[in-house]
């Protein structure tokens, strides 16, 4: 009895710690008062103001666009890496390949952002492209650091994938390409979707790398939000938080649904 009491208490306190700040944020988003901390009454005022704030809406659209595109590219390249590492024996300079595909996971974002910015500036000096930074440069940077996350998920999935199915298909006369498109990819499709969702969320949430590689006309949502809350509080951001948290949590639930690996 005693130990199960301790157990429930620990789990309860842990979950309280994790969810309390999110609930506080949602609670204050319904505060009528412009001064965030002084409660004046329940109201949807800031939700209205949020939807008529063109700067935030525009930033939101830019962010979604960049996140969808970079997640798609990162997923294609990440699946190729995961497949190569598990199924293809001859990879030239394999340690280097592993280094390239796993280091972005541990490298602080700040260093990654700085290196991307200096790269784009140097590239512009040499070949005259990209002449200014913006959505394209953020997209390239996001693809680069999302690849690694997709690659891990795919690698894990392919590792416990039963290779006999592929071999059986080959014995039945399928060639390599056909096995891949008809057997392997359909079977790992849920993991591919999970990888895409993860990459999408990471791109949507990124502030540091985007701050380095942004330019005119490419203020993403985190950049706009950060500029609003860096020095104080903003009732509009409270409303945005509530909506965004809700949306992202739903994406997260989809991720768990697709990433079966998680359930074992």
């Amino acid at each position: 009895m005693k130990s199960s009491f301790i157990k429930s208490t620990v789990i309860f306190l842990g979950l309280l710690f994790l969810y309390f700040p999110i609930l506080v944020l949602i609670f204050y988003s319904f505060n009528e008062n412009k001064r965030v901390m002084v409660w004046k009454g329940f109201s949807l005022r800031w939700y209205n103001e949020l939807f008529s704030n063109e700067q935030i809406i525009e930033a939101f659209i830019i962010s979604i666009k960049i996140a969808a595109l970079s997640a798609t590219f990162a997923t294609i390249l990440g699946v190729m890496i995961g497949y190569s590492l598990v199924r293809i024996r001859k990879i030239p300079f394999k340690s280097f390949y592993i280094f390239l595909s796993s280091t972005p996971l541990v490298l602080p974002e700040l260093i990654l952002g700085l290196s991307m910015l200096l790269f784009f500036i140097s590239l512009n000096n040499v070949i005259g492209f990209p002449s200014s930074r913006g959505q394209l440069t953020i997209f390239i940077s996001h693809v680069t650091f999302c690849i690694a996350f997709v690659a891990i998920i795919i690698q894990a999935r392919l590792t416990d994938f039963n290779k006999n199915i592929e071999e059986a298909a080959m014995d039945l006369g399928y060639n390599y390409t056909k096995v891949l498109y008809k057997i392997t990819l359909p079977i790992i499709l849920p993991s591919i979707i999970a990888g895409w969702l993860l990459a999408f969320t990471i791109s949507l949430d990124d502030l540091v790398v985007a701050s380095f590689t942004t330019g005119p006309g490419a203020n993403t949502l985190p950049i706009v939000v950060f500029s609003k809350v860096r020095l104080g509080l903003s009732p509009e951001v409270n409303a945005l938080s509530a909506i965004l948290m809700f949306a992202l949590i739903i994406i997260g639930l989809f991720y768990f649904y697709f990433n079966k690996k998680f359930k074992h």
Partner: protein
Amino acid sequence: MKNKLFEKYFVFSPYFWLVLFFFIPLAIIFKISISVSEWGMPPYQDIFLFDNGFEINTTFENYIYIFSDYYYIGSFVNSLILALISTFFCLIIGFPLAFYIATSNIRLRNILLVLVVIPFWSSFLLRVYAWKIILQNNGILNVILLNLGITSEPLQLLYNQYAVIMGIVYTYLPLMILPLFGYLNKFDLNLIEASKDLGLNRIKTFFKVILPLSVPGIVAGSLLVFIPVVGEFIIPEMLGGSDRLYYGKILWEEFFVNRNWPGASALAFSGIIILVLPIIIFQILYSRWSQKNEI
């Protein structure tokens, strides 16, 4: 033959992308970190000069400059201490949670695990912002403390290093819990029963059985928290004050405010060497150690 072509396509497409957009940028950081700085745009000289024949124009001045100034060294040490403290608290809070989740029945376990990780999916920036609201002078925490009579006037909870630690522990906790859970979930719970049957009390069971078996999870979780925290910029910027400077802030200002590109690059490259290189070495040593101990 067709298979070969297809394999090459699969291996080399991402290879090409990562060399171009990841490896070359890192090389450029190194190049600029050994360039001579000057006023102008870009604010450094080329490392190869062709004015009078061929000349290599490099310097280690930028590294000497950084490593001889307490402003830089001190900030880096601050970041290491911050990362150490935060990792410690993540472990203290994360371990019991991971342990109790891993020892729950299967249905409850999956629900709890999703519940623990879901906050991690919601926006990082907004979760930090939430703490800004909680820790305000007239925020919820102060209201609770005042009503309980613990303090008679609102405490200044925000804009200091404790608020930074709070924010970090909160946002990075799931990164600690997941690998811990991964390893705790694998081990046989009967071992705990067995150790009790053999007469070990709870404390001994913990230190002799549970803890040694969770070492790989502790190591993985600690690394996932420690390394990004050293380079953390947003949390100190939102919740921290001027009482302590950290590596991320210094790097940011060196580049954007002081416009010292070679200096910022030297800081970044030192960060790579100090943070990332040890992990690679550690991984090699660790895989040898675990092979020897057959874990």
